């Protein structure tokens, strides 16, 4: 118990019988408790609870010959990330010398996410069905993963090209990749803006 024990009767007298001191079996625990809580506080404060998360990125392997490079078709979606934090430019198909092809949106939930969801509707529906099947234990782990890859990388799936300007922030790129993952877009690439394109965009006042 947590009180100070007084010493039990000791034998002072010469003729008193030698007796074992009456020791209580109780120990003062206060210092131990102090120490315990000190350590507890220390460990609670130093423990790292949220481990950092990560996203995996696979960059294309550098082709040895340039003959069979995938070309941009009319259905692909190209995003242009610039230094403007509130605007994202995008267009479908090939780049044309016509400012009206370029549409504008933003990084918010209502902006870019909607664009991706709309343009990747078919794939999203298929993925949803597949996930339901998986949840009902109708599919094995490996089969599920393979089928998911097939759907995301299928011919119908939308191909998204992300072109980041020199002045774009890293955060913008991560935001877009994150939204792509959320919208089940499996085919995307990070590419530089070509000089010709850059010149045009500058002329239209889209980038500085």
């Amino acid at each position, binding site marked *: 118990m947590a*009180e100070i024990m007084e010493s039990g009767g000791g034998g002072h007298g010469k003729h008193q019988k030698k007796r074992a001191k009456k020791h209580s079996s109780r120990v003062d*625990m206060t210092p*131990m408790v102090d120490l315990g809580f000190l350590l*507890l506080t220390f460990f609670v404060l130093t423990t790292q609870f949220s481990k950092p*998360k990560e996203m*995996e990125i696979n960059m294309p392997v550098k082709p040895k010959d340039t003959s069979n490079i995938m070309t941009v078709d009319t259905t692909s979606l190209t995003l242009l990330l610039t230094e403007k934090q509130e605007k994202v430019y995008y267009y479908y198909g090939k780049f044309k010398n016509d400012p009206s092809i370029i549409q504008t949106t933003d990084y918010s939930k209502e902006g870019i996410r909607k664009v991706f969801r709309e343009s990747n509707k078919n794939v999203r529906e298929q993925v949803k069905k597949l996930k339901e099947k998986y949840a009902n234990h109708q599919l094995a782990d490996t089969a599920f993963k393979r089928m998911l890859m097939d759907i995301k990388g299928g011919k119908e799936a939308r191909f998204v090209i992300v072109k980041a300007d020199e002045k774009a*922030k890293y955060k913008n790129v991560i935001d877009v990749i994150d939204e792509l993952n959320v919208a089940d877009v499996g085919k995307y690439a990070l590419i530089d803006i070509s000089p010709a394109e850059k010149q045009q965009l500058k002329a239209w006042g889209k980038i500085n």
Partner: protein
Amino acid sequence: MAKIKLPRSAPSLDMTPMVDLAFLLVTFFMLTAKFRVNEAVPINPPASHSEKILPENTLLVTVDTAGHVFFSMDGPDVRRNLLKDIATTYKMTFTPEEYKRFSLMTDYGLPISKLHDYIKGGEKERGAMDKKATGIPIDSMANAPGGELGNWIFYGYKQKSIHDQQNKIPRDKQCRIAIKGDGQTNYFKIKRVIKIFQDNNPAINSFQLITNQETENLD
């Protein structure tokens, strides 16, 4: 009126259960704690919805807001071998004591020319050097296409791979390469690092980007 008798003895309570609980918690935290490593620069990575947890065995390249690049890798044995490789490449010599010191460090963000001073310095001096760190140079040079960072990555990845092979580490736990960038860093600074990864031999085309967890939930 009847007097209320106050108890004479000091109020005392049995603390045993509390102590038990406290020590249980202490033990738990002690065993689960993984100490935060001293980072050379504060980094605030952008948030994402990804739920993958960063693997343990990573070779990390940190890019701060100003675009300064830091290289970090853990594992004392691997670091020792890395320093040996660096020493041969740049024709430097280190004492066994310096090897030992280097093997216990984590981040490095200075040109090779300052490596000797950095290792020699104490905790304080190193902290001061970290604060003024200019990052590892990435400009390409005659003997190293990826600059000094290219060499750090090449030898670091090589030593990690050797280590993984020797210890027969399964494929999914083998060394990964990760980039930790601040959200406000210009993307082209990150792109330069990615280019060095891809120019490396063997090319590193698959790597991790470290993010914080986004709290907003998806509908």
